[in-house]
């Protein structure tokens, strides 16, 4: 128990630099080529302070390919364009709406759906 420091579980750090091996002292040939690993947040969330995740809980939107348990990524800062999907408030509740020419001005848009996350399991 005295040597607890040796068995300390380290949280992985967000670093992509290759460490110099302590045994040989030689750098890895990959030293100058390492890059940070792909992070989904980079592409799925452009404006994090305006982005919200929303769970779909029924099959009302099956015809547009949105099913129960899908998670919508909604960006409130984006104004939806034609043929894009938006989350709108209709009669006191949330509805998923595909924008066509006429609807935008009459709709109460909450945010624009930017991605739909589905599980295939």
């Amino acid at each position, binding site marked *: 128990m*005295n040597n607890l420091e040796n068995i*300390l579980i*380290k949280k992985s750090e967000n670093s992509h630099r290759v460490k110099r091996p302590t045994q040989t002292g030689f750098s890895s040939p990959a030293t100058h080529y390492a890059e940070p690993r792909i992070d989904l947040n980079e592409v799925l969330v452009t404006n994090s*302070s305006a982005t*919200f995740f929303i769970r*779909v*809980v029924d099959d009302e939107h099956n015809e547009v390919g949105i099913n*129960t348990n899908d998670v919508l990524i909604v960006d409130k*800062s984006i104004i939806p364009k034609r043929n894009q999907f938006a989350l709108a408030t209709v009669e006191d509740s949330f509805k998923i709406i595909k924008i066509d020419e006429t609807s935008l001005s009459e709709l109460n848009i909450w945010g624009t759906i930017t991605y739909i996350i589905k599980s295939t399991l």
Partner: protein
Amino acid sequence: MIGLVDCNSFYASCEQVFRPDLTNKPVVVLSNNDGCIIAANKEAKALTDIPMFQPIFKIRKLLDENNVTYFSSNYTLYSDMSRRVMDTLMTFSPRVEEYSIDESFVDLGCLKIDDYNVIAHNIKNTVHKNTGIPVGVGIAKTKSLSKLANKYAKKIQLNNNVFVVDSEKKRQHLLRNLQVKDIWGIGKKHTIRLQNNGIHTALDFANMPVAWVRKEMTVIGERLWRELNNIPCLELETEASAKKGIGTAKSFGYKLTDYSLIEEACSYYVAEVADLLRQQKSLASQIEVSLQTNQHSSIDKQYRNKIYMNLDTPTDSTLKLTKEALKGLRQIYKNGYRYKKVGVNLTQLVHQNEVQTNLFANPHKSESECITRVIDNLNSKFGKNKIKVATVGNRTKEWALIKEHRSPRYTTQWGELMTVGSSLCKPNKLVF
């Protein structure tokens, strides 16, 4: 120029963002333990029958009759929404001071701006668009004036809650229309003293000779006087300073007589404050434990006490702090009372790197500190409180705060996301 951005009825607004059915409806938020109303939106405030700070059980019927929706406070949600507002403000200026959970100062002086009215409306609209939170904006040359400008805009509800002091005429107009009690930093005592001297409006105060203000109200009053006269004296504080003490004191959901339950609650709060201590990279040299009965109860016998426990060396170890806290609790606990609240306060904090140890102290991290690190890592990986000190126990329900009406933590928990669809069944267990 400095802008003061203030969220309207912040707690109620946070709830309304996720509840379109509550738009333009009265909403109130209750204090910890659902004790009383601590926040109300415009619509709820307009119902003058509803008394603020009244115990909820006394006014529940009144709320229901007036169709007021009430929520237990959901600070997890409010702090995330506050962060979003702050981050949005950062897109307007690199220098933002978070003054409180719902108010920020924004330095606009470092930007090239022709018309501050345009930027004020832009800030207001962008924050609302991004977060759903309505805000008011006051802009002026000094912090005190921008705070007053914001207050004035809200008071008269003109120009969409925006007021910009960009001319001498507007400064005079603003100060003429506000009372001395409205000035940021002037309390009741000074208000009475000023009124007794015939100083009623903020303009009266700003027009007094500076020597008089200094004599009557010290250098703090003089600073205010200067600020109202367009001379900046208060700097923007953009770096949050490390807290000098970290504490929590929460009521139990029920009155407790069982010592072992109080011990559990106490251990739980120690773990909570020790976690905050480590987050700001400090160590505590002293821990204060307090215990009290319900002072509002007329039937209970009353008792309250507190004790300070000194630690040999400053520490951030949950294990060590828990041990000391429980030792203290044991000393102040007296049999035969119905306890309502236990408090834990870490004081005499020092930074991790600036510890003064005594001659015989071991410079290496102690075993208990290493264990604490391991626990932190496991909890950050597997979830809050997965690993805890045994004295925390498993009977949280028997003492924890009552939060019967808390809304989901929409933005921080996968299991509590906002939902779309008519189905009422909530897939609470489906998470990624």
